[in-house]
């Protein structure tokens, strides 16, 4: 290590040595400690090293943004934060019912901590209360953030099973709160017939559809409750949207160790398929049994395939064969690297309200379930409610939740990549408790190191592609 103090993650490509400077929040160059000494290169290396060590002393002098407000986790400090940065989205769970029975769904039997499917539906009266509460907060705290725009999302189960209430909600919002709301829906697409699709387009919905790739792969993972295949129905409905040249539609793609990534990439390259906006491995939360069925060999084969796919994609970029087209590989390989390079709040200290992980402050978003309970977001299990629409956000409870969550930051202070952390409550929760970071993040640094070593190999060859991408 060249450095005297600070927290750094060292990694290298074949050609160069780098550090992630976790204090500043940026990647910095170093020089290889060992070089192959050809004749006459010794002197070059010594000079290069000498000046690099000098530079590191200069780098130590880098100023940081003074920490102006470093509040303790109290009800007042949380309120102040939420009034300023919160209320970014209201998501309504229109129903806990679904016409699909996907084995990887977090509401299936494979996940112990989350609710199961039920026949519960949200009434319009509950939805209206949630909507009125959300808009009252936006109005009341406009002074804290005049630029906040309301976003209302609809989630399920399958939200289109409760289309009548969805429609009423949108009509109610438009008639009572004007036309500046952004609407979003996450759907399995099976009920999004021509009429529904046209209505979503008319109301400028951001449409997210779960589609797991080509027919065989999609049908493997996504089936109706009676076991029938879903691909053809979903594709037909997607075509209603794309044939209208509507662009605000994206795909949520989920894969497991049986997925053929190359075949899926070919599928998503087709012109009539919307952009892949989310691509993630089936949830492997601590309470999950989904992956129990996969043997180690299967896992290793998948890792091999994943690396092969990445090399193929990155090589294509270097050869200039790739444009930003929203394909699966772009989402799987380019976006994480883009985020590593751009996401960190460089030179700023983390807020003392959430010094580690990428967790939000509960209340930034609000997920209202069918019964009117408010939760952190749609991904968090039902054991951590943060209020109810009749009583509003419970800031005492939010405060206790944050304090409880932070008790598990046992590894974070020493973590070399804490400023790159993308974990949140979801990864740490098992039923009503949080698991210690040391357990969840055991291999995080090593895994990232490995990934960065590969990613930087490509960055060294082609910079322009990553600098021109825009995944915001």
């Amino acid at each position, binding site marked *: 290590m060249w450095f005297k103090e600070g927290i750094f993650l060292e990694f290298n490509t074949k050609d160069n040595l780098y550090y992630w400077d976790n204090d500043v929040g940026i990647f910095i160059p170093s020089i290889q400690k060992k070089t192959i000494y050809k004749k006459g290169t010794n002197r070059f290396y010594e000079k290069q090293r000498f000046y690099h060590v000098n530079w590191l002393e*200069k780098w130590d002098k880098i100023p940081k943004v003074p920490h102006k407000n470093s509040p303790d986790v109290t009800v007042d400090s949380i309120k102040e934060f939420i009034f300023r940065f919160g209320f970014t989205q209201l998501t309504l769970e229109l129903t806990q019912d679904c016409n699909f029975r996907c084995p990887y769904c977090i509401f299936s039997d494979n996940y112990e901590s989350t609710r199961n499917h039920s026949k519960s539906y949200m009434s319009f009266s509950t939805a209206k209360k949630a909507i009125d509460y959300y808009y009252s907060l936006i109005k009341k705290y406009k002074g804290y953030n005049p630029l906040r725009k309301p976003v209302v999302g609809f989630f399920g189960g399958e939200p289109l099973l409760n289309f009548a209430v969805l429609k009423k909600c949108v009509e109610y919002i438009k008639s009572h709160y004007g036309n500046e709301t952004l609407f979003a829906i996450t759907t399995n697409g099976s009920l999004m017939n021509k009429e529904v699709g046209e209505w979503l387009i008319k109301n400028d919905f951001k449409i997210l559809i779960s589609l797991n790739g080509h027919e065989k792969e999609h049908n493997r993972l996504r089936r109706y409750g009676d076991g029938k295949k879903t691909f053809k129905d979903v594709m037909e409905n997607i075509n209603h949207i794309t044939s209208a040249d509507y662009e605000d539609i994206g795909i949520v793609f989920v894969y497991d160790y049986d997925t053929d990534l190359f075949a899926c990439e070919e599928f998503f390259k087709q012109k009539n398929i919307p952009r892949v906006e989310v691509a993630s491995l089936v949830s492997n939360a601590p309470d999950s049994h989904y992956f129990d069925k996969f043997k180690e060999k299967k896992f290793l084969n998948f890792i091999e395939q994943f690396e092969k796919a990445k090399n193929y994609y990155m090589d294509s970029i270097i050869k200039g064969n790739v444009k930003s087209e929203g394909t699966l590989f772009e989402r799987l390989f380019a976006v994480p690297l883009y985020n590593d*390079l751009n*996401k960190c709040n*460089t030179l700023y200290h983390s807020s003392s309200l959430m010094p580690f992980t990428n967790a939000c402050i509960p209340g930034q978003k609000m997920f209202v379930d069918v019964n009117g309970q408010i939760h952190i977001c749609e991904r968090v299990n039902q054991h951590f409610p943060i209020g109810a629409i009749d009583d509003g956000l419970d800031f005492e409870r939010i405060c206790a939740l944050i304090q409880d969550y932070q008790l598990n930051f046992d590894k974070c202070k020493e973590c070399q990549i804490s400023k790159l952390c993308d974990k949140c409550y979801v990864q740490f929760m098992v039923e009503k408790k949080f698991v210690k970071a040391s357990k969840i993040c055991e291999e995080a640094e090593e895994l990232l190191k490995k990934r960065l070593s590969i990613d930087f190999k490509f960055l060294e060859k082609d*910079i322009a592609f990553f600098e021109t991408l825009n995944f915001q």
Partner: protein
Amino acid sequence: MYFRLYPECYYIEGVKRGALFDLIESKSYGLNKKESEILRKCENNEKIDENMEFLEELQKLGLGNFYNKKPYIQKLRVGSSLIGTNSGLPPKLNRVFLEINNNCNLSCDFCGINGVKRTKGCIGCNVWNEDSEPLKIDRWKKVIKELIVLRCNDVFIKGGDITLNWDETMKIVNMVSGNISNVYVIIHQKFLKENLINDLNNKAKLIVQIDNIRERIDGSISALILRDDQWIKEFNDVKDLIVDYVNVTESTFVFLPSVGRTDVSPPNLFNFLNNMTFHPCLGHSLTICFDGKVLPCPMMRNHKIGSVKEADLADIISDKMERIKKFWGLNLDKIEKCGKCEFKYICDDCRALEEYLTGKLKGKLLCHYNPS
């Protein structure tokens, strides 16, 4: 072999040559055409095999290093580059001018009522040929409450002559004091009295508008003086001097500072990176006039954004953000001539004065450096 600048060193290219900025050591290096050409290639990760002397010099200065193989060098930034201006986050309001009255019994030639003649008119006093109804104290209270909630960083309280109704001025000072990080009060030298200074003690920093050096002021006060080299020499015991250059004739601009290559300030990391996106002065700044008009700058009277008489400040910000952004985001890349210049991110610029002199919002007159 490859040579790359370190993350904190920025190579900025002008239309003809480039300059290099070390944002940790706050140093700028103007480069000649040949040096610029070499550095452009290096920063494009092109292989180098000649002109090593120049690059070795940069290596010795701690600005960059040689690499056997192509490296990837990330440039230093402040904050996250994923947070765009349309992120829905609260606006960053660094500086607000509260022009609390429009009355004064003096008739100074440099006053705004006679046109924009000064480089720092914003932090001096001015009256305007405007006779609208002034805001009542209760409305000011509401505006100030809004500024506190918005976490405004600096507030400048100015007039006119704000000593004419000192009780009201102090009410405003008391409202902002302790709630806003930096509070400045601007008073003309002729109205300065000891009891006023005592009233402001620990509540606000005083900026005194001076046009007569012979009357001394207290050494702990910031003084905004009109340009006269002799005066500056005599004023060497005043803590902070802010020099306000004034144009004394309509036909020539010889008394206004025309920026040249040697006049630019050393680069400050935060300002430099801010200036790549925002105007160095207008960025994150607003003015609330005596009659409630909201302007981008106290001297840009023709660019009304809204009025706090008609709406809350939050509503104006929310409804007129696109218009506000046009001023905040007027970085020097967008200003004629400046866009071609390699020193654009360390240069000052008074848009009010330039607009007055050229008749164009993006015009530029006060610069004698020729980047072409």
